[in-house]
């Protein structure tokens, strides 16, 4: 009977290695298609002061809005589509909604509106959707997808969506919302949503300099490590997790409390710069940061590599692209770049049990 006590929820980790100069490298696509980012961590070894270019980028993450109690039909209104969705890219994610319990709504920059709703809401709305992949025996969650860009005003479909969200059942959420526009525009989100409580937020930046840090030796060419020469990608990732959470990693095997130690072979860095940005972060900003991290090695540096970790929102209805994301015991969906001196990179993408395999 107790067989299942030994089991744990499934999780996936994809490790890739390539080079930024490689034409086929998909690093940009992976960053661009991970739409909803909550936190970025950047670690630069042997560095105590951030170079000005990087510092500028870290502090130039776009501001975002938190709009309270917005009816979802507002996102389907023609005026909103014409003003924002069709000009540039809108990122919107319902805030304070939990994907394993509540109705969750997301507007992707592609113009796709995703409503991940519970059974009751689904039945009342009467819009066409698919059952969630992560349902238990009885289907309790449905995913409705509406392509706003192809929605023609006045058509039956448009009217039906509008009627369902406005007359049939007024679905309301708080939204984190951001608009990445190509240039100067006549409208802003804050004026568009002025009848709702709309507040601008700037991402929070915190920095720290760590001293005398043991670190695992890694080699860009060797993703799976080599017992004598270097550590593998997942060992490195665990170590990186310890560093960002400020966990001590030089324990003895005989230590009562913890036997956790830095993977071998290891070395010690004198100092390291750790920088964290938290908020509702645009993939475009992350792309720029990644690009600048490559340029970090334009001038000679002591560091052999730098790393950039990006955490997605645990309650986003998608992880990469339009792949469905869920929350079981956790909702992790994150990726980490290790940028090497020679422009090689490692990309690690991780998800929990209610997610498909990362791209």
């Amino acid at each position, binding site marked *: 009977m107790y067989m299942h006590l030994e089991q744990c929820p*499934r999780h996936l980790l994809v490790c890739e290695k390539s080079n930024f100069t490689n034409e086929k490298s998909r690093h940009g696509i992976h960053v661009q298609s991970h739409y909803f980012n909550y936190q970025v961590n950047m670690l630069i070894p042997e560095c105590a002061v951030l170079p000005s270019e990087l510092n500028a980028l870290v502090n130039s993450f776009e501001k975002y809005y938190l709009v309270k109690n917005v009816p979802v039909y507002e996102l389907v209104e023609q005026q909103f589509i014409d003003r924002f969705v069709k000009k540039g890219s809108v990122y919107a994610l319902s805030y304070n909604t939990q994907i394993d319990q509540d109705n969750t709504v997301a507007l992707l920059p592609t113009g796709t509106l995703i409503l991940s709703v519970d059974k009751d809401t689904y039945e009342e709305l009467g819009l066409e959707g698919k059952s969630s992949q992560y349902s238990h025996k009885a289907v309790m969650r449905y995913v409705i997808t509406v392509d706003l860009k192809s929605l023609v005003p006045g058509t039956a479909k448009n009217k039906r969506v509008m009627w369902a969200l406005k007359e049939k059942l007024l679905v309301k959420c708080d939204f984190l919302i951001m608009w990445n526009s190509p240039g100067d525009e006549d409208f802003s989100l804050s004026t568009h949503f002025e009848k709702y409580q709309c507040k601008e937020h700037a991402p929070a930046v915190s920095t720290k300099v760590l001293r005398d840090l043991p670190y695992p030796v890694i080699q860009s060419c060797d993703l799976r490590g080599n017992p004598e020469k270097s550590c593998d990608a997942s060992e490195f990732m665990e170590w*990186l997790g310890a560093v960002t959470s400020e966990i001590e990693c030089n324990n003895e095997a005989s230590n009562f409390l913890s036997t956790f130690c830095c993977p071998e072979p290891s070395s010690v860095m004198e100092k390291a710069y750790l920088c964290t940005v938290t908020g509702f972060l645009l993939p475009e900003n992350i792309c720029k940061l990644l690009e600048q991290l490559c340029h970090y090695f334009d001038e000679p540096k002591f560091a052999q590599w730098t790393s950039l970790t990006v955490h997605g929102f645990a309650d986003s209805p998608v992880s990469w692209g339009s792949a469905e994301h869920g929350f079981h015991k*956790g909702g992790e969906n994150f990726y980490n770049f290790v940028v090497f001196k020679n422009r*090689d990179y490692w990309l690690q993408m991780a998800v929990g049990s209610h997610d498909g395999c990362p791209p």
Partner: protein
Amino acid sequence: MACHERMEDDSGKYERIVHKNGSSYHYLKISLEFEEDTSIRLNSAQFKQLIISSLKQLFGEIGAALPFDVLQFEENTLSAVLRVYNRDLVKVWSALTLLGSYQSEMCAFRVQQVSPFLLALCGNSRT
């Protein structure tokens, strides 16, 4: 368990490995709560001992022998990060859940986050 594909393109450098349940560990971010007016203090060793005794209460000697690490402990808030083997996750977690008292004072473990990735603990949008 890992499957592996190598793309033999011009550079020959691209490599991709997919680890299914690759991590041997799960990490738990927890804290211990007492009644508001408690005078109880615990140091890190007592804290770990308490978890071991909760395992012993529920699973006997085998439970008490399950290896796990207290990666981090904060004495003021009685919060900690644990590392347990995947196969022990359910046992350690349920032992924490069923612990109800320490030195005859009521207490409860609150589990803030559970993840197979240590790195996920710093970027949790739910907290």
